[in-house]
């Protein structure tokens, strides 16, 4: 049973029993240690000499100096920059200065970390329920049938505000005029379906002019294409914070709504949002395509195009967070267009409730099996 609040929460807490992206695969190497904060927990990220990623708490056991300022040592370990304590990839202390033994209590937390879909995913909650099978499906990121690339944006806004943004794309008409926005977005109807951990919102706009960004992409596959298109946006949210959007256009009336996309182009916009603090998040995204796979210029042009679009979102989200903070006594009210985001919020709320319940249980495993 879920308790439904009478008002909409403005920002959300983040579940801890979840996989969050800590970095792009290429950002973490075996020669350097980088610092990233995920869900308010500073992490020291690096790879072992065999390339296995490691996430340790970024604070030495001794006096909490950041391990990320230290050195990679001994095949799989790090050395604190301050007094030289060493820790292996399991977080266990392997060296203490000026003494012949090692305190058996000395260790730093080592968090589960998995490399998948070009990202490094970490789990900060109960490690006994950290199942890599629950990493969201983002296979377009590294499939041979798809090409594309993306970036990371640090947004000074609560992660849920980004999810709200992506779950309702009518904002494109107002925020992204000139690239992907058009009036038909708010004129067309949409449909929401849901499962236990996912929500899907579909919108079709038939026989319209393609917005500039998609019109240009269409020409990568159909050089010189002009004319009306059928446009779709199928937004799929997967708990707690991943949204993959199947977007595209096809020559109008060639059967795309019925499933024949052969006269069109398919782009997948991949988004996964990592809470950093209650008022900031790291937004990892990419745009992929399943045509013109060897056209490197398309990869770059599309990535840069989306980067420009997302900078507009970032400006709006930061301004929204500031307005929320500046008006603590004002509430959120909802519109019909918020259905997708509201279902996502409901799922996050349920995860948080499950975690609160599990905190009172001696047996977290049994909780996850129910």
């Amino acid at each position, binding site marked *: 049973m879920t308790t439904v609040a009478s008002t909409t929460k403005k920002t959300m807490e983040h579940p801890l029993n979840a996989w969050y992206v800590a970095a792009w695969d290429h950002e973490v190497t075996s020669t350097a240690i980088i610092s990233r904060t995920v869900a308010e927990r500073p992490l020291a990220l690096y790879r072992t000499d065999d390339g296995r990623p490691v996430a340790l708490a970024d604070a030495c056991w001794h006096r909490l100096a950041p391990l990320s300022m230290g050195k990679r040592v001994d095949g799989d370990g790090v050395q604190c920059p301050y007094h030289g304590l060493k820790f292996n990839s399991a977080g266990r202390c392997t060296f203490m200065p000026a003494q012949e*033994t090692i305190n058996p209590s000395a260790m730093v937390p080592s968090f589960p970390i998995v490399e998948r879909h070009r990202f490094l995913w970490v789990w900060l909650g109960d490690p006994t329920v950290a199942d890599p099978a629950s990493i969201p499906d983002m296979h377009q990121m590294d499939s041979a049938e798809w090409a594309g690339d993306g970036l990371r944006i640090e947004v000074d806004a609560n992660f849920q505000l980004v999810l709200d943004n992506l779950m309702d794309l009518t904002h494109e008409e107002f925020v992204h005029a000139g690239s992907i926005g058009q009036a038909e977005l708010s004129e067309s109807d949409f449909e929401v379906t849901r499962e236990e951990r996912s929500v899907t919102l579909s919108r079709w706009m038939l026989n319209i002019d393609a917005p500039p960004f998609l019109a240009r992409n269409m020409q990568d596959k159909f050089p010189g294409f002009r004319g009306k298109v059928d446009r779709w946006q199928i937004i799929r949210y997967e708990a707690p914070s991943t949204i993959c959007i199947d977007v595209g256009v096809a020559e109008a009336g060639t059967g795309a709504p019925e499933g024949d996309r052969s006269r069109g182009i398919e782009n997948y916009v991949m988004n996964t949002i990592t809470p950093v603090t209650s008022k900031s998040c790291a937004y990892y995204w990419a745009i992929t395509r399943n045509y013109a796979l060897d056209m490197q210029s398309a990869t770059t042009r599309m990535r840069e195009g989306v980067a420009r679009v997302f900078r507009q979102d970032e400006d709006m989200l930061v301004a929204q967070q500031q307005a929320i903070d500046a008006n603590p006594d004002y509430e959120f009210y909802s519109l019909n267009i918020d259905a997708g985001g509201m279902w996502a919020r409901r799922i996050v709320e349920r995860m948080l409730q499950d975690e609160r319940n599990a905190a009172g249980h001696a047996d977290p495993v049994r909780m996850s099996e129910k």
Partner: protein
Amino acid sequence: MTAPNSMGWQAVRVVACGPVADGIQRIVLESSRVERAAPGSHLDVEVAIEGGSEVRSYSVVNTSEDGRRHTLAVHRAPQSRGGSEFMHRLRVGDELNATRPLQNFPLRVGAARYTLIAGGIGITAMVAMASMLRRLGADYTLVYVGRTRARMAFLAELELEHGDRLRACVDDEDTSLNVAQLVDQIANDDLSPAIEAYMCGPIRLMDAVRRKWSDTGLPLTNLRFETFGNSGWFDPEEFIVRIPRLGIETAVAPDSSMLEAIQGAGAEMMFDCLKGECGLCEVKVLGLDGCIDHRDVFFSEEQKNASRKMCACVSRVVRPVSSDVETSGQSASRESAIVTIDIT
């Protein structure tokens, strides 16, 4: 570890108590705060001793489903420093102060295979670890060492829960643990670099395992142990501490620590962990009439053998006697051992 470890002192109430083995009392404490104790965690408890109060640490055997009740099991040491006697006197309805579950001995999830070694009351730290490993479907063995079955708490329940994965080594049944064999078995295992061992028990057992583990060349970081510095090679007895530079001579009672005695005599000492791990309370040994019972894990074996320093928080001095002298009843008239030291 660098996990949130704020102590969270609170009043807790005894809701159940009773013997679970010879000399071992099970005590269930109820707290108003809901918090699951992770395997390996302990509670610090304020115990009343001779009008004052001190803090003792006890492993959490398990936490109830609702996260409010923590079960401890306390061994009444004949030479108790007073803490275990206080705990054994507790009755249902009594209130006392305890911390939230504190973690210094976390079980790492994800090792290829686990060996858990519990000696005597050390089983209290292993019960929850073994349960979690069973629920995770991990590959583990729980080795439980004791002198007699009657003195081994929870043995029947553990046999039921773990079946063949439990190996009971009972001295008076001639199934005593052969430490060398156990460690060799781990070293010869195909998975040996990925096997983690966790142990808690008397210092003789832990020293033997540690020594063999390091002789065998197994990675020392794969051997985890917790000691509250409360067991030694000898039973505690009264001894004398002299600090000539300060003109101090004081007796250390069997149920008091050398650190407490020195402070009681008016000298200021530096210390932190109080369980023989950090080494802050080390003192210089200038002279010794007797022998040092090193109970810390800070000094190396060579340093302990040299006996030029000792940890005042847990280590003691004794005058060992041969067994024939003891049985002839002369031990009562022996002079106390004496250690002459200097402090910072």
